[in-house]
């Protein structure tokens, strides 16, 4: 199956990360990456090179917050969770996505 270019994630990486964290709070970076790949049946893939900058950016913007915990294996991990502002941002992003995809669908139908 042809792999969708990860460029297609550009605008929506934020959206996906926020959504995932809203469903499953307190995930570390690897888990988020795995979740994106898993839930989309490997169609969408977030590369490490773009995931972490996005995570840091969203953290600085105040949509997610991070802390260091000790996980089951005893090693330290940095986990992220959604903030109140992030929840609001998620709602905004989602409606934006709906609007854009509906518009594109309309064009595809008409044209």
């Amino acid at each position: 199956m042809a792999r969708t270019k990860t460029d297609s994630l550009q605008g929506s990486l934020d959206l996906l990360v926020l959504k995932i964290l809203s469903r499953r709070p307190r995930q570390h970076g690897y888990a988020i990456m795995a979740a994106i790949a898993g839930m989309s049946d490997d169609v969408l893939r977030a590369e490490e090179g773009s995931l972490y900058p996005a995570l840091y950016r969203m953290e600085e913007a105040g949509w997610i917050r991070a802390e260091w915990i000790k996980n089951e294996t005893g090693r330290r991990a940095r986990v992220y969770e959604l903030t109140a502002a992030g929840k609001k941002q998620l709602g905004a992003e989602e409606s934006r996505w709906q609007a854009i995809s509906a518009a594109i669908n309309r064009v595809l139908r008409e044209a």
Partner: protein
Amino acid sequence: MSLWSRIGNVFQADKVNREIEEEFEAHIAEAIAQGRDPEEARRAFGSALRQREMSHAIRVLGWLENFLQDSAYGVRSMLRSPALTMVALLSLALGIGANTAIFSLLDAVMLRSLPVKDPAQLVLLGTGTASGKTDDFARTELYSYPFYRQLREKNQVFSDTAAMCSMTNAVHGFVEGRTDSEPMNVKLVSGTYFTTLGVRAWKGRTLNDADDNSEGDHPVAVISYAWWKRSLARDPNVLNRELKLGNMIYNIVGVAPPEFFGTKVGEAPDMWIPLSMIKEVPPNFGGYRDNFSESLFILARLKPGVSSTQATSNVNLLFRQILLGFPDAELSQENRRELDKAQVPLTPMATGLSSLRRQFSEPLQILMAVVALVLLIACANIANLLLARSTARARELAVRQALGARRTRLIRQLLTESLILALFGGALGVAFASAGNRLLLRMISGGPETIPLNVSIDLRLLAFALAVTVATAILFGTIPAFRSTRLELTNTLKAGRGPQDTLRKNRLARVLIVSQVSLSLVLMVGAGLFLRSLVNLDKIDTGFNRENVLRLEIDSSSAGYKPGEPRAIALDQEIEERVSALPSVRAASFSAFTFHEGSWGSNVVVPGTNIGQSVDVKHNVVGDGYFATMQIPLLRGRSFSPSDTSTSQRVAIISEHLAKVLFPLGNPLGRHYGLGDDKPENDVIVVGIAKNVKFGELAEDPVNLDYFPYTQRPWDFGDFEVRYTGAYAPIAAAVQQTIHSIDRNLPISKVTTLDEQVARTLTNQRLVAQLCTFFGVLSGFLSCIGIYGLMSYVVSRRTNEIGIRMALGAARFTVGWLVIRETLWLAVVGIAIGIPIALGGSRLVSDMLYGFRGADPASLAAVVMLLLLVALFAGYFPARRASKVDPMVALRYE
């Protein structure tokens, strides 16, 4: 939140980096645990360094971090070349410090608003330039108390009106409980003074209108904060303390706030007393009820919404109304004409009154220009030094650009280094400025007492200093920054340098040196001009002999002597006799004025003519020994003698100039004239003619002057002069002892010499001359360093070339001469440019110069010689170094 955390992260850069590292490692470990290939997992991250850089950049405030890095780098590189840094810092500190100090003085004297409420709404009737007491009709400068009362009542444009005495009462009063009197400066003001100004008391209360509404029975005083601190040691019980001034006891009812010093800049009264007490406070001016005893300034606060034109017309209307309404107004034709002509101007009082301002406004502006030039020279110096240093770093910058650094990034770094240098210099400069301020205040005070002017550094001045600093940094930093980053990479990276590069840089450096030399020339010529003017003024013949004369003030009215009383006259005569009898005393006398102490003026009437009507004659009231004490030659007739008593014929001695004016034909001796009018009690007969003397200023034209004996004309405050031989200190002590042996309570003050008093009138000329000389020398020094720096650099760059020349047979002397020739050429060009500027500048200040028009060829030539010598000296050492170059070493030098 995010901005603060990003700023915070700048200072925790290591911690941030470690965290990122750790998170990436955890991610990779997790991937391995999930079964991915470790190598592949790492590769998926991409370049670890790049990842970290990107993440770091997101979490950290970029430009702040860059700024801190550049600053640290700048400081380190400055420390690596300490001599250069020291010179740069010192010249910056001097330039910025001088600018700040002069500006703070300018601010205090000319710009600062009074520390009162809404100073912009305050106006003064008249221009505030006259002070004293007069009874002239239709004077617009000074007003009487009844006039003030009527104006206050009848005007429609002022929300409040106040009056204050134009003179300050210098009283020797007693703080209740102390046996010795102390000098106090008292200002008599209306009860509405503080309310009009909007000033609240710091302790107790200020004066109010009720304190002023009846004569003589409101003995209260508001003291200044400074006096409370100085004389009462901030006694918390101050409101129960009392003062004795003259014959009355005054209650202290309040203390003024610390920043309030009154309404005249440069004068700070110790206390304010209501005008109702004007007859009681020594020297008992009086006139509370007199319609025409005019000695007060009137100031007022405009009603909101009233323009100054409206106020002016209302005031002028009332002026006429009130004056014509006075029952004792002399409505002669002359007076009516004066009234018609009179126009009362309303002067804004936002910055207060000041005689300092008139005296110093032009010198201060000149000094401001001078220090600005000095700063420019300092900047040129530093720019040159930075240029030289940047060439040494050309390789480093080229490498960085080759590795991908953007040009703007490098420029930003170089500018940051300049800014750091400038900020350090600015901080040092502010420290210099606060020391310089005190020095300047001492210099403009002239005499033994410092003028009470607040020149401390405040926010405005710091802002000014900062602005100057940043402007300086931009001025000397930008050009080197741009120049040194515009590189041809290949040429620079190669060993040795392309000739193009050196040539371009040298041109800029030379331009800077030339401009430094020309500015130095301008400053030095200016200094020479002011020095010459000062010397000219100092050499003026005053008419009297100013050497070896002791002069002091005796405040007899504070000790209870009323002027004109036989008791007071007898006291004066006894003092004169006893002091004249002292060994080493040649003569002694009282007088109303000696030199530059104000005057008492009026017109005179020559019977049978109308010659003296429009002539302003200054009068002096003196003792018999005055002319001997001051050594003023009597050209004709006689001096005063004991035969001139209070009952004998009234006599006068007139000056040469006055004799020519009043009695152009025939012998003036024995002629009569009237003082002010032709009433018999004002008639005097001329018994002597004295040589012309300088009375008010050294540079004045001959003055109409006449003298009366104090037995015939009462005078209250006066000077006592003693001509002595030998040393000053023992005589000063002996004279004071003698005076006190006659009456222990006589307060003596302002003990000094006549010479010092005359010298004091040259304060502002001396200030300008001294400071210009200092800055002229400083600029010469800076130019010297600049030339030395440039020539050293040139020599070191051309060492290769010098080696070749020598190897080909050039003599050592020729090589040295090359350098010297270049130095002289730079100096000559600078001088040639500077001369027309200096000549133009001297034309601008010609009205401040005494005795000559502008720069003369002799002094110009002297300055040129001096500058050439400086240039030679600066160039000598590099020339010597060039001539000592070993060709073998030089040829291998890169």
